[in-house]
């Protein structure tokens, strides 16, 4: 059992090391592809909205409907 636990610990250690390496080497797409003229900033939340169901047939794709223009 000791070797199994050691294997798990070593695998986690390699994964953490790889995580640090990849985080240093790569940037999120919203950051890598941003320019001065077109920038969405840190999305920070799910862009499709909190009411997204994931079902393309349900028609529920956005959290909020666009507001009616005030007349």
């Amino acid at each position, binding site marked *: 059992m000791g*070797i*199994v636990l*050691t*294997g798990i610990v070593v*695998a*986690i250690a*390699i*994964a953490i090391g*790889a995580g640090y390496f990849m985080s240093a080497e790569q940037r999120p797409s919203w950051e890598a592809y941003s*320019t001065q003229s077109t920038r969405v900033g840190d999305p920070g939340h799910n862009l499709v909205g909190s009411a997204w169901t994931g079902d393309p047939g349900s028609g529920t794709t956005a959290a909020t409907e666009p507001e009616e223009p005030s007349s």
Partner: protein
Amino acid sequence: MQVLKRVRPIGPVLAAVVLAFGLIVAPAGAQEGPSGSNPTAQSVNEQQLLQELNKIQGRITIPDAKAATLEQPRGQDFRSFHEGALPWIGGVAVLGMLLVLALFYFIRGRIRTRSQEAGVKVVRFNALERLTHWVTATAFIVLAITGLNFVFGKRLLMPLIGPDAFSAWSQWAKYAHDFFSWAFMLGILVMAVLWVWDNLPDRYDGHWLRVGGGFFDTSNRTHPPAARFNAGQKLIFWSVIIGGIALSVSGLFMLFPFAYADVNGMQLAQTIHAVVGVLMVAVIIAHIYIGTFGMEGAYQAMGSGTVDLNWAKEHHSVWVEKQGAKTEPSQPAAPPTPAE
């Protein structure tokens, strides 16, 4: 001059009539060239471009060069595969393997060691071999769970836990998949170096395969001779090595997206990765079964590193003889190397 004076009052009316006539006639005239042809109708349209170039592409100035591609029909094929064929392939492979193993267990039962324990332990795998196995196994289990989430998560898990929890879980699962993949790749590499020599085909493999390794003999009397690894273990080994290399290479394409491939290359890498991945999950389920519940004494080989001498004689008789021949001058009483 008198004529001009007479015309002056109706001048604005005349101009308005001429202008109105011009506005009515001009659009029709603009569509036709000097020869009476219609250049808009004869220009290349989007469908023709798509047929000739196999994609609709423009020029952009933003850093994301791939955003210049507006349409590429292979994307529809990929989506059709990803949303249609792939879940079926994965479902049949994984559930089919579970069903086969369940049937095998209920018909054959656990494969037990026929002889009593000899009380002499034989070293089967050293510490480095076992560590490599368990590092790779840990990584593979994480990769399998998080990988299956990509294929089945939104269909099976999201209805149970809701979109918010599924989104958070999938994000962490994606990170785990990316980071544990390095432990898996390293493990595959070391495994190949450690065990490739013992997994080359030998003269015992044909007979082992013909009798099914004795797995289907309910009397448990069939134990075909095998060297360190029998033909079944060799099939598992080569499945893991070849499948692992395919997963590693296609996975590297995805770990560094669009660095080595365009969008079509990325979709091909994902297709290979997904198909090989679900097939490997099925193979490893069989490996886990036979290494735990399926065969008595098999887990000890990779757990403690040692097996009982009689177990080794039943399942790897040729290997035991070779080990005995190696150690005979120093330990004539016990053919294989006894473990401490």
